[in-house]
């Protein structure tokens, strides 16, 4: 595999978010092994971990920015990509998968022009593949924010997206 996937979406953090992060970091800094909790807190505030945020963490905790990046890319709980206005998730649990969720995901990739874990350049859609979300009766399932779409096929994707 090659390089790590990175978003092209410009950073839109607010002063309020930065204040919140810096206040949190001031506390976190007092403990050992501060990078993990710092990244967790930052992801809660921003929803993802853009470079600008990782640099703030590095600066305040006085650790190399590359080390922060190393931790952020090592643990799967962290994401470098923002969520879109509409976050599209496809369940790839066993039930959904055997009923064609893979094809649904592929159709979404084509329709949205992005890969899984990416966000479209206009910031409108992001795409995720998730583990079983527990409504196997509806398999295959996809969600857009809080709306659930069950028993869908790859062909339905275009129509569903048209409403957004």
């Amino acid at each position, binding site marked *: 595999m090659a*390089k790590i996937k990175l978003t092209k979406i410009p950073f839109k953090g607010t002063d309020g978010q930065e204040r919140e992060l810096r206040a949190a970091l001031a506390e976190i800094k007092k403990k050992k092994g501060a990078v993990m909790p710092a990244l967790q807190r930052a992801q809660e505030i921003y929803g993802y971990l853009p470079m600008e945020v990782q640099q703030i963490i590095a600066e305040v905790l006085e650790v*190399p920015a590359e080390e922060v990046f190393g931790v952020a890319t090592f643990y799967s709980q962290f994401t470098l990509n923002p969520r879109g206005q509409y976050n599209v998730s496809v369940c790839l649990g066993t039930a959904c998968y055997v009923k064609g969720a893979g094809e649904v995901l592929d159709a979404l990739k084509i329709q949205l022009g992005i890969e899984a874990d990416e966000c479209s350049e206009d910031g409108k859609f992001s795409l995720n593949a998730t583990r079983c979300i527990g409504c196997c009766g509806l398999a295959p399932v996809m969600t857009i924010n809080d709306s659930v779409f069950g028993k869908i096929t790859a062909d339905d994707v275009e129509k569903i997206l048209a409403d957004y």
Partner: protein
Amino acid sequence: MSTINLKINNIPVTVAAGSTILEAARAAGVKIPTLCYLKDINAIGACRVCVVEVKGARSLVASCVYPANEGMEVFTSTPKVIESRRTTVELILSDHNKNCLSCVRSTNCELQSLAEELGCNAQKFSGESKFYPVDASHASIVRDNSKCILCRRCVAACKNYQTVSVIGANARGFDTHISCLFEKGLNEVACVGCGQCINVCPTGALREKDEIDNVIAALNDPSKTVVVGTAPSVRIGLGEEFGYPIGANVEGKMAAALRRLGFKHVFDVDFAADLTIMEEGYEFISRVKNGGKLPMITSCSPGWVKFIEHNYPELIPHLSSCKSPQQMFGAVAKTYYAEKLGVDPKDMYVVTIMPCTAKKFEKGRPHQDAAGVPDIDAVLTTRELARFIKRQGIMFKELPDEPFDSPFGIGSGAGLIFGSSGGVMEAALRTVAEVLDGKPLKKLDFQDVRGMTGIKEASYKIAGINVKVAVASGLKNARELMEKIKKGEADYHFIEIMACPGGCLNGGGQPIQSAETRNFTDYRTLRMNAIYSADKSMKLRKSHENPAIKEIYKEYFGEPNGNRAHHVLHTRYVARSKF
């Protein structure tokens, strides 16, 4: 000191408490192969090439991190051990880009020699191979991760020698690879181009940006007057590439080889080092007399200059405004010498041979163009020169010793010792003391600033002033001094800093010594001794007494730090981002 007795392959041995099995084995005259381990900076026990059998232990242990214990019985080459090492290396090879035939490190590659020693079947496991774009964005360094074995030695060098920390292991599992923050190119981060990462890399994953072809093109272009100069440390490093022992001084053969490569103006950058001392020495005197910014810090090491620009931009006024010897060399070649020859500076092509990769970056800096064209056109490292010599079929060992050409062929001992940490300071002191005291020095050796210690301090009584000096090499040590200055805890007058630990003799462009040598031989001291013993044996040991220097001031510059000297020999710096 408490000691421990143990047996290595039934050989009894006594070692200091705290020694590893690897060290104990070495003391017993037994070599254990290693891959990820590097003394002082990388003891991570990751690669498991160094495994050994310990009597009573259930599994094989990694000898590079496993402490030797009293009464231990260790076996370093049982069939089980060899089989395990072989499998480890075969697994590494499974996704390695094995094109040894066109690899810069072939015959000097730790992975290749391990595979050979262990009798590996390189094709045994054929896994998915990794694809990474080569990062050639930096003027000095090229990274090809398809050759990387993830030993993390480069990461450790960048972090622990240099505190630059711009490279690291990112992502995880099969995707793990060495790269920079947010996958930026090395040219987009605060990499200083020192090349210490190259010197510790066991494979061809890291190398310098090769400029040999550019030089060959210039040598074959009849419209170009090609000038070459060699830095102090090259002559004491180059021999290693041709089988000479570490610390052999091959100055005469080096000059002869350059001539056979087609250079018609073979000069010594030691001359430009003397010129640097004149300018820097007088700059220092003027700062002391006129209340200028102190401590003054040397600016010869481009890795160091870039480091201060990224990390301590507020301290830039402390830097001497002098160009480095390399840049002064190019500047006088394209002004004074071009005028002398009646050559248009545009038609002059200046090549330097450097122990340094950062010099490749330095030549492209702004304000390094005394004649309106870049002072320097190409920089070859010591390693590239060796490759060039081999490529052209020159039998290096059989060459006669030849002198440099004039007018830039005369360098003093002071210029030569620039190659070692402390050398610039000593050279400057020799000149500053004589100029200020107005009488010859009784003792030319400034022992306190010599040696491979990271930070050295001394004070000398010169012209009634107690001149306090400090010398640091390795950017970790430089950072320590800068923090002191920032906190107002440093009352030095003059500081010498070299980016590479030990100075240019250990530069990122010098011949690569294997981990085996780095772990068990003090190769830096061997190279250093070669420099100081050459200085000792020279008649001319002070920059200001160099007849070629006297001549160039008389004919061309007038006074040190004068108007013309300022235009040709001095430069400016820029503040850069921390990340």
